């Protein structure tokens, strides 16, 4: 009964490759997010989608392309991976107008070699 699930949990790939991370939430929330956490644990918002519509795109290189086929899914595709893309990527969801906070997935640890 995982609320926000991400796959894969670990991803090791070579520079220049293209990879995708998938996220699904079963909470019925209308907003989903992607965050990047670096090696110093700093969390940075990347994207936000509300009802499949891109709301926030925070100065992320255009090699990163989010896709939301429906409001329960938000996938992240990364082209031409670089060493600096190595991080933990978290998906999260929330419901507009409530005060229950965000629900986070368990993260995808991406290592680019």
């Amino acid at each position, binding site marked *: 009964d995982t609320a926000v699930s991400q796959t894969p949990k670990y991803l090791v790939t070579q520079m220049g490759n293209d990879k995708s991370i998938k996220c699904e939430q079963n909470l019925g929330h209308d907003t989903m997010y992607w965050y990047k956490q670096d090696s110093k644990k700093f969390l940075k918002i990347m994207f936000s989608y509300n009802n499949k519509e891109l*709301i*926030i795109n*925070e100065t992320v290189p255009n090699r990163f392309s989010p896709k939301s086929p429906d409001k329960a899914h938000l996938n992240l595709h990364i082209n031409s991976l670089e060493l600096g893309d190595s991080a933990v990527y*978290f998906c999260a969801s929330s419901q507009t107008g409530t*005060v*229950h*906070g965000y629900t*986070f997935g368990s993260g995808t640890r991406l290592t680019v070699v």
Partner: protein
Amino acid sequence: SQQGEEDPQALSIQEGENATMNCSYKTSINNLQWYRQNSGRGLVHLILIRSNEREKHSGRLRVTLDTSKKSSSLLITASRAADTASYFCATDLQANQAGTALIFGKGTTLSVSS
């Protein structure tokens, strides 16, 4: 666009002691939230305090908010080894007309030893 700053960066205490973490932020907020992150896991929402509230309790957690100083504190009483984790404050940032997003501080790493 970093909004919150936690202090201290790291805190080590003994079981049974209280742990206090502080957070400062820069701009006006609607609410402030605290999250916990266990090693290798996602963040878990702990508590939310609205901008018109000054104090809130949840179990062993006590959160205060001082909007005049743009600061908040999280107190964990009678700490346990299981409280060992990183703690983040987060504020809602109006990123644009269409939406908001939580902006997180750098976190406080709490170690509770038995």
